[in-house]
């Protein structure tokens, strides 16, 4: 399999990846946010499919999800909104959500819809790898979709190897054991952790998420990895300033 994620990861430049919640702030903002991100040079995009009970998310993303659901967001609507995605950009796009939404849509149908829109990968934090491997891996692969696992500082080496085995393209490295948006800056503990995983020389690349909010934290994390994902900080920004103010946010991360 060789999709847009793999292609981008082959380039040496560090990746700035942005997470946002589909259907937020307004129902039909999804594609417009993507356009803004692309226009401002973002390297990769995670589109969050909002869920009623987002266990792994902090308050910022949860609130955006609640609002998006109120706005009428759904899996079906998301795929409609993204049907012309590939007419506006070629950056890798990943759908991130909770497994129940996928399950109810039908895993096969969900993957088909993703492929049709030009989605490159799926992050489902609550889909266990053993079940993925036993039941769904072939479907993902059939539709050219990268399965992306998460690891945390508490994940054992043995487990990391299993996750590396199951994953395709990159591993989403949670900077510290915490829900999204709850940490402030990185200390020596996190840096040691980044280095430790880097030194494991896994088959997948590493991208860091959770806790990146400015250029300093970005640079710290990117030192040992292929780049970073920013979620809560971006959502906070557009909540306060509007999605048209995406430019200064991205600029502050990519200034160098």
């Amino acid at each position: 399999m060789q999709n847009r994620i793999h292609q981008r990861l082959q380039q040496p430049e560090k990746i700035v990846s942005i997470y946002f919640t589909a259907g937020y702030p307004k129902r039909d903002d999804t594609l417009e946010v993507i356009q803004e991100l692309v226009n401002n040079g973002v390297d990769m995009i995670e589109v969050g499919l909002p869920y009623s009970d987002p266990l792994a998310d902090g308050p910022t993303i949860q609130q955006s999800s609640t609002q998006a659901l109120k706005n009428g967001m759904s899996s079906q609507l998301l795929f409609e909104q993204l049907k012309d995605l590939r007419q506006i950009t070629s950056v890798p796009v990943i759908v991130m959500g909770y497994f129940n939404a996928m399950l109810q849509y039908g895993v096969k149908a969900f993957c088909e819809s993703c492929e049709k829109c030009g989605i490159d990968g799926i992050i489902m934090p609550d889909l266990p790898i053993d079940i993925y491997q036993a039941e769904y891996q072939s479907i993902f692969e059939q539709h050219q979709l990268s399965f992306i696992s998460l690891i945390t500082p508490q994940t054992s080496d043995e487990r990391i190897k299993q996750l590396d085995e199951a994953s395709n393209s990159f591993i989403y490295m949670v900077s510290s054991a915490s829900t999204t948006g709850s940490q402030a800056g990185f200390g020596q503990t996190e840096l040691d952790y980044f280095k430790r995983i880097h030194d494991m020389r896994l088959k997948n690349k590493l991208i860091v998420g959770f806790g990146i909010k400015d250029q300093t934290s970005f640079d710290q994390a990117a030192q040992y990895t292929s780049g970073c994902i920013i979620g809560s900080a971006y959502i906070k920004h557009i909540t306060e300033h509007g999605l048209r103010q995406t430019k200064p946010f991205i600029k502050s991360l990519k200034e160098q």
Partner: protein
Amino acid sequence: GFYGNFGGAFIPEMLYPNVQELNEAYTTILASNDFKKDFNKLLRDYVGRPTPLYFAERLSERYQTKIYLKREDLCHTGAHKINNTVGQILMAKRLGKKRIIAETGAGQHGVATATVCALMGIECVVYMGAVDIKRQAPNVSRMKMLGATVKPATSGSQTLKDATNEAIRDWINNPTDTHYIIGSVVGPHPYPDLVAKLQAVISEEVEQQLFEKEGTKVPDHVIACVGGGSNAAGIYYQFLNNPEVNIIAVEAEGKGILTGESAATTRLGRSGIIHGSKTLLMQNKDGQITEPYSISAGLDYPGIGPMHANLFESKRAEFISVTDEDAMKAGLELSQTEGIIPAIETAHAFAIFKERQFNHDEILVFNCSGRGDKDLQTYTDYFKLID
């Protein structure tokens, strides 16, 4: 970790080490003599076990059958919930944990958790929906008297489901020193199994007590209300593999199946994932979890434990749903016929006589899972007891 098609551990990787640690340890700990000794001692001296198996003479006469009540309402803190929290706090100590978190709906599990934390001198944080905090004020007071911190869950419907989300988030953020005491047979494996095993003492006692009273260990029916299903799991446990015993589960129909205000999961739900477990679940077509409704805050949950989902799907158990109105009337009837004011959750189980008849020589064992003191305001308002 599966019950037929249900169960498993559908959890974010951030939770994996916590759950895995528990999963690797729990069977060994539960089986150890040291744990058993401490657990049984606390159940006896602190919780007040064995709870009686009480033959309800007047109720039996009214319904022309033999009705026994397993008196979990007499447990310390007023419900079966404490069997589980006593077991889990002993487990948490063996795992070296220094901090306990829990979710609570009506507050009974929160009180039971705060209680064992006070007993052991361990820090305790209980997540509770902001709406529940308001409508279950006495239980909030009890938790605070016991020294626990009560943190409001302000997301979603601000009830049990959301409190559970918050507790899980806390656990994610505190992966090493904290043990999460789930209150029902829900959540990722091993919780449903762990909680069921800790509640199994209920049916173990029933067997022995029934033998003393009736010369048989085998009732014809065991009956319990099911929200998440921990009291039901406890009273079914020893009888699950005995086909002579009919298992009856009573769900909260709320205002009626078709009203949109119901919590009858097996009638309104379908397979899905909630709180890390694959089970029957009330959800919309997109898999968004829908808000349940029941007059009872303890049954106001959109799922059921995976064990119960499997009992339903395999037809091992008979599922009956009863409305708010029938449950409230059954609560009043038990109060005035036997002098036992049940929790509104528990009252649901006693409402089955409208739906179901029994022979005069059949032995029914109800789990009288909790006392109704916490529900007095609701009863009083409903029946206009005070002018």
